[in-house]
């Protein structure tokens, strides 16, 4: 089965690359191909629509705020299950696409043990065994898989609640809410990590590329895989070059300043004409 899934995904990526384009400039690496990016945003759009329409019905405190976005209460109620179904369908394809790189490894368990260092930014560079996805990303992925299933299982009786048994609808209501809260927690962290917390990450889902510096900082093992180079050595080399450059600039600035001082009007040695 897995081989047929792989064949399907490979074909999908090839077809998407034929239609779309990813330009990799010097000093950059291809992070996400067109197919992955398009899927990601289809999932994202359907998720945000599901989230907003769902939260309108979730709480009386949000009802009057969010239902107007969808044209009132009845249309919100009508659209929400369809948004959710779209989300599940799109995410199913992303699931197939990402199943292999998302498999849990020992490196992820190690990553999870040092989550405190990760969140407090104590270590500037990720450990060398962090691959294409880190442990946190994998947890989010599997949380979506579980939540997506829970959404579907509990959503159907709520969609058809005038035919489903009473106890089933009442129980589904809680399951649906728990899945939503899990997803929301992950979603907040996901957006934060993808934008403000890690500059240079967002473009991986728009342009599809990242800088080499980004790659050896956040995903060193992946960097080694795609470039065949040692991430630490390259980092140290970049650091040396940066220091040299800084020193050269400082030296240049120093010389420049001295010359300016020397040439200052009023100084007797080199009077200006």
């Amino acid at each position, binding site marked *: 089965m897995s081989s047929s899934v792989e064949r399907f995904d490979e074909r999908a990526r090839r077809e998407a690359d034929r239609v779309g384009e990813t330009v990799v400039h010097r000093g950059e690496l291809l992070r996400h191909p067109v197919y992955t990016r398009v899927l990601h945003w289809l999932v994202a759009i359907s998720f945000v629509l599901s989230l907003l329409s769902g939260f309108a019905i979730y709480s009386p405190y949000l009802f009057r705020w969010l239902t107007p976005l969808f044209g009132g*209460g009845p249309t919100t109620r009508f659209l929400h299950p369809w948004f959710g179904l779209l989300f599940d369908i799109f995410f199913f394809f992303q699931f197939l696409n990402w199943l292999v790189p998302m498999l849990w490894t020992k490196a992820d368990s190690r990553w999870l043990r040092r989550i405190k260092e990760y969140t407090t930014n104590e270590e500037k560079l990720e450990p060398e065994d962090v691959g294409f996805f880190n442990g946190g990303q994998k947890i989010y992925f599997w949380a979506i898989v579980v939540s997506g299933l829970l959404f579907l299982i509990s959503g159907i009786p709520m969609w058809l609640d005038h035919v489903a048994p009473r106890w089933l609808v009442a129980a589904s209501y809680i399951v649906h809410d728990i899945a939503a809260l899990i997803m929301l927690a992950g979603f907040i962290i996901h957006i934060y990590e993808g934008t403000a917390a890690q500059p240079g990450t967002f473009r991986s889902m728009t342009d599809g590329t990242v800088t080499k510096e980004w790659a050896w900082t956040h995903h060193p093992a992946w960097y080694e895989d795609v470039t065949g180079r040692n991430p630490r050595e390259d980092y140290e080399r970049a650091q040396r070059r940066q220091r040299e450059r800084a020193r050269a600039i400082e030296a240049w600035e120093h010389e420049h300043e001295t010359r300016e001082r020397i040439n200052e009007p009023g100084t007797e040695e080199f009077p200006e004409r």
Partner: protein
Amino acid sequence: MSDERTLQIQQISAHPGTVPGQGAQREVEVAKYIDVTTCIGCKACEVACVEWNDHPFRETTFDNTYQTMPTTEWNYYNLIKFVEHERDGNFMWLMRKDQCMHCADPGCLRACPADGAIVQYENGIVDFQQENCIGCGYCISGCPFDIPKFNPKTKKVFKCTLCSDRVGQGLEPACIKACPTGCLHFGTKSDMVALANTRAKQLREQSGFQNAGVYDPQSIGGTHVIYVLHDATQPELYGGLPSNPQIPPSYTGWKWLAKPAGLVMAALGLLAVFFHRVAVGPKLPQPEEPPPAEAQPDTIEAKRKEKP
């Protein structure tokens, strides 16, 4: 007793904040009292209900009983349940007029997520406001009596209104007016409870129904439709009347406690990532450009060293 002021709203579904005008007037709770023991199953109440609400006539279902159809429907609020029962070797017909019970603590109202789709008047009538209904159907699963019914065409839910339009004009509900045996009564809740208790006592003492009693289930704070049953210990006999009706905990504890808590957690999560960015800062690709400045000596510490 039952003028327009009795339609002052007491509770609104999914409504954040207080109810406007609550408790402004002295209010009297109303109740419908159904004496099951004197019902003859004539269905005059069913017809009166259909007539007053201008409902089209529905097709009836024949299932070898006298019952008009299996359950109440979105345009058939009032249905007599016919149960053939054997008591001491004798045949007995249990005929119970089934309709909305107008609970003091309505499960439909608790379950409803649409602001203002279900209201409870201070006189105890629970009424659906179809213009605010979003058709989600949660009220159906919130009701312990299986009363609200979905209209697939309009995607709205309907049920007995206790003729709130009539009661608001000082009239009794249409079913009460039509009853020929006097087994249906309408009045204040306290009057109806007193009347029902008297009748139950009479049944116990004079008619040999030792278990006769009033059905006014306290698990949902009592109802504004009360029954006198031959056997109040077994209400299930009367076409599935629950002896201990319950609102699902997902619409009580979960909705009013866990849901707001979830929202607060989501808000805290947003604040947490915001302040993480402000306090801890971003993870930049390494080496950072420009390189971090050399550690500066603490200025106060430096000045202190200069002084002596």
